[in-house]
């Protein structure tokens, strides 16, 4: 799965997600990626989210909208992403990852799997990583 969230110069937010699914999936099986509220959500007043991981678990939690709802209640983006993925892990035993931008332009990401490739571009600085706690930075 791949995804992107962006905020433009007008403060508008958009999110997108795309996937090929899982090897050997049942014909006709659909995961979270095309389901608004599960794999993807965006609302300018709160933020935007794109998710990856075990699709069925993400659907059960409505992960993208869950993260948005936590932010709507006042939680910071990073905390909302982490708490939501922990909920998914504890409640339905699912692992995954998510990226997020809040309405104030705060980027966030987290994953509960072994690895997830991520990148953030903001203020002409590009940061990226793959392993837990890995963070590289370069000037754009």
């Amino acid at each position, binding site marked *: 799965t791949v995804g992107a969230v962006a*905020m433009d110069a007008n403060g508008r937010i958009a999110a997108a997600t795309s996937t090929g*699914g899982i*090897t050997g999936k049942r014909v006709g099986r*659909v995961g979270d990626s095309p389901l608004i509220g599960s794999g993807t959500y965006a609302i300018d007043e709160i933020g935007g989210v794109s998710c990856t991981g075990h699709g069925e678990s993400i659907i059960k939690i409505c992960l993208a909208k869950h993260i948005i709802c936590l932010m709507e209640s006042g939680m910071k983006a990073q905390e909302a992403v982490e708490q939501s993925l922990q909920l998914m892990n504890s409640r339905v035993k699912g692992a995954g990852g998510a*990226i997020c*931008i809040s309405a104030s332009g705060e980027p966030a990401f987290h994953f509960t*799997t072994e690895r997830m490739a*991520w990148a953030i571009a903001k203020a002409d600085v590009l940061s990226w990583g793959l392993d837990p706690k890995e963070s590289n930075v370069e000037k754009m």
Partner: protein
Amino acid sequence: VEPVVVIHGGAWAIPENISDASRNGVKLAARKAYEILKHGGSALDAVEAAVVILEDEPVFDAGKGSCLNAAGLIEMDASIMDGTSLKAGAVAAVANISNPICLARMVMEQTDHCLLVGEGANMFANECNVPSVDPSSLVTEACLEEWQTFEKYKSAVDSLFNNQITSLPLGHD
């Protein structure tokens, strides 16, 4: 407002032999999206362009490099959402286009619907003159090998779960 972009690839046990390509893929997508935003482009244009790059990069499970299903076929899903209007578009189980995210955006902008699936999604792609590609062109050697491994051991997995399943119970999109 300061433009911001965040990108992700798949969350899973990414093998070491594709770790650098995965890092480079998300960096390239972030750079492209950020460049669009810095030149006054919209958030929608930025996320679509970023995902197109990732769909075209074979190490990611989307577009070229998609996993094969139980029948050995490709079925891809994608969605896009505009946070200003709350318009959304999505496609599921599409097989014969290179960039499902572009078709999802067409669903959002050219229909009253949020999600088109399977044959209907492919018919819509034809209506929109989206170039049709041979699905085999989206299959990589690595995905084919993974599917062949799945086929080889599927019966063992089925036995383990008392023949109650026809696909792996775990795994990540």
